[in-house]
């Protein structure tokens, strides 16, 4: 009975955050299949370590494990990306081109792409091209809406470092050749 209670608790606290887990894994691995493998592996680990989980922040706890699993996976399969965690000389356009979902977002008909779609695509490419260590803080903050404190816990760095890393990530985006190529276009076109 203890086992089924444990599983039930896991289903209530951890399973609902599958979308967040996948979103982070997808942004860190930049590949659909790899992200799914990582998420499945992360859930197995989470289930194994679940007894050690206290408190009610299921999402941040799960994301810590997902991130860790991503890093192990990258270390094994694409070690160059992990060793270049903060390498700002990352070849932006090149590595972003590996992402088929973003590269294919134009539907192969450049003339027909609305300005905003083009812009969206470039923004997503620029984020995907960020070095891993900056990309992860940006995703955790802007897409997962974690507080600095939660991000600090997930990545295991001081809160002050979260702010400076986020500042650097945003500055890199602003300076990115990709985004600069469309500078002058407002970033939020739908805003009234």
């Amino acid at each position, binding site marked *: 009975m203890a*086992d*089924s209670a444990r*599983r*039930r608790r*896991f*289903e*209530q*606290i951890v*399973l*609902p*955050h*599958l*979308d*967040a*887990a*996948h*979103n982070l894994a*997808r*942004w860190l691995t930049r590949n659909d299949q790899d*992200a*799914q493998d990582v*998420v*499945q592996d992360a*859930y*197995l680990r989470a*289930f194994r370590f679940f007894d050690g989980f206290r408190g*009610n*922040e*299921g*999402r941040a706890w799960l994301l810590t494990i997902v991130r860790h699993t991503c890093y192990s996976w990258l270390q094994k399969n694409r070690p160059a990306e992990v060793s270049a965690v903060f390498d700002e000389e990352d070849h932006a356009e090149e590595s972003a081109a590996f992402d088929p*979902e*973003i590269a294919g977002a134009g539907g192969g008909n450049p003339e027909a792409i609305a300005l905003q779609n083009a*812009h*969206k695509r470039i*923004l*997503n490419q620029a*984020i995907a091209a960020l070095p891993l260590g900056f990309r992860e803080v*940006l995703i955790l*903050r*802007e*897409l997962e*809406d974690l*507080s*600095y404190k939660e991000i600090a816990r997930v990545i295991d760095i001081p809160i002050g470092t979260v*702010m*400076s890393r*986020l*500042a650097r990530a*945003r500055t890199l*985006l*602003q300076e990115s050749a990709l985004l600069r190529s469309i500078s002058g276009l*407002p*970033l*939020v076109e*739908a*805003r009234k």
Partner: protein
Amino acid sequence: MNCNEALDLVHGYIDGELDLVKSLEIEQHLGSCPACKVQYDQVRELSSGIRAHALYHAAPPALRARVAASLPREPGSGARAWGWGGMAAALALFTLLGLGFGLALLQPGAEERLAREVVAGHVRSLMADHLMDIASSDQHTVKPWIAGKLDFSPPVKDLAAQGYALAGGRLDYLGERSVMALVYRRRGHVINLFVWPQAADADSSVRSDSRQGYNLAHFTRAGMAFWAVSDLNPEEFNAFVGQVRDQVASAR
């Protein structure tokens, strides 16, 4: 404060992470330094641009099934062959049983019990692929559909203009009665808003709580009880609850 300090702190300020003293300092600096103000505006625009346009990679349904299937089963469990529907049914049954036992043994406060049910209802709606009976962002479609199913007419408002898009609605069962569950979305996050009639002399103020990583808030207004639940961050969640409350008041 000099510009170098300000350029880092601007990020903490935009993210709502600075304490009062630092916030005042940076506001003062931005008021007197046009260069930093430009940078502040650009970072804020970049941040909202990312939030609006960066891809949110929600988990594909196949992965959901794969993860669920891969978790170790407890020995002798009858749940082995069950799909998500069965699991949800088991959970629902458990909730009802738990409610019965809770009444008999523990007698938790009515509000505590309801809060548990609201969270269970939210989790169930996400697990069982039964988020919505009617998927529509049009309040004029959702409202009549509900009216045909329930003995009351809940106020249905699309809050897309405020950043909380109405995604649809479904029937649910809470506190031993049928209730309306309205589903709103903000980015990847789902908000369940449960509504049912409640005889109350006066409107109550919003009471907030959080459990299992979810934020909860409830209030009564215009003779209806409202319970909202989501994994959205507290700021945006509270803003949503405030919007709902204001809309109900103005509908009167």
